[in-house]
């Protein structure tokens, strides 16, 4: 198996470069991350993030043959060779495949990703009906891997002002939560030319989401809620 991997060590390299590797995957090495972990035993300078290795933590998001995805759930068998691995597009590179996610999490925090409810706390819990709970399906599963935001042209042009698909999916997740009481404020906070409305409905986000979620649908629903609220 041939791989071409983006390499950059800010302490040593003046410019990034692509390094070629070749190895024969063992039968047990079925996912791309398995191959990367073995490559690291050959070349310990190769740097990447990984943790759960089963598509839950979102650490090993990277650009695989031009498309963002999680290395741990990308089967080696379907990949065109040489497999080109790059860090998430548009994010500042710290080293090799490791990127700086500060801006991404800043946008995530800007939507206040927690329940806001000043009503007196009930004795046990804030109860939700099964229907109300079902509203959160397709939203709560987001693992914040940043595959979507890093592949979104609107985020490339205005990362400081546009919340981005991941943040907007989370915004919708709290807007539709029956236990939250800040829906109107949340909608108002997104109603400017940049935070939500830089979205051009390009739908790269939905296309690449490794969890099969649809940030573009969530964005559309926020827009429709805004229209309803303004009537």
């Amino acid at each position, binding site marked *: 198996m041939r791989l071409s991997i983006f390499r950059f060590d800010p302490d040593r390299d003046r410019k990034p470069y692509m390094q070629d590797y070749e190895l024969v995957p063992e039968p047990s090495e079925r996912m791309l991350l398995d191959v990367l972990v073995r490559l690291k035993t050959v070349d310990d300078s190769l740097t990447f993030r990984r943790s759960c290795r089963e598509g839950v933590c979102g650490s090993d998001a990277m650009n695989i043959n031009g498309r963002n995805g999680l290395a741990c759930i990308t089967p080696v068998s379907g990949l065109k060779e040489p497999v080109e691995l790059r860090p998430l597009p548009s994010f500042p590179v710290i080293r090799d495949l490791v990127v700086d996610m500060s801006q991404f999490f800043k946008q995530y925090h800007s939507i206040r990703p927690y329940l806001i409810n000043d009503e007196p706390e009930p004795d046990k819990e804030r109860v939700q009906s099964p229907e109300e709970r079902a509203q959160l399906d397709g939203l709560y599963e987001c693992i914040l891997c940043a595959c979507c935001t890093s592949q979104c042209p*609107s985020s490339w*042009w*205005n990362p400081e002002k546009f919340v981005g698909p991941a943040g907007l999916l989370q915004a919708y997740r709290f807007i539709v939560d029956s236990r939250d009481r800040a829906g109107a404020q949340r909608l108002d906070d*997104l*109603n*400017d*030319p*940049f*935070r*939500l*409305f*830089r979205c*051009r409905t390009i739908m790269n986000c939905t296309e690449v989401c490794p969890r099969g979620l649809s940030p573009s649908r969530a964005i559309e629903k926020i*827009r429709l809620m*805004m*229209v309803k609220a*303004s009537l």
Partner: protein
Amino acid sequence: MRHALSGLNAWLVQRLSAVYSLLFIVYLSLHFLLEPPGSYEQWQQWMRQPLVSTASLIFFGALSLHMWVGLRDVVLDYVHSPGLRVCLLASVAIGLAAMAAWTARILLG
């Protein structure tokens, strides 16, 4: 509105103007396909009918607004220097307003 430029309003204007323009273009195409005017005079007569001239006027208004939102989006996406952005937005607004006024003069004249 907390900002000089709106989010939801611009988006709504873009959607509504697109729907109106599409309907008008379909109507115009059908008219020219089924009842093509035989001469320039006939065409002028048809255009002078109050319903047709009003619908055309609304169409060009919708087209101008649609172009404004679209071009505004291009400027907001790619132009990050505030000074240059204001200059470009002003030029687009003035250009579109002049074209809209000229079109209105032709249609109403």
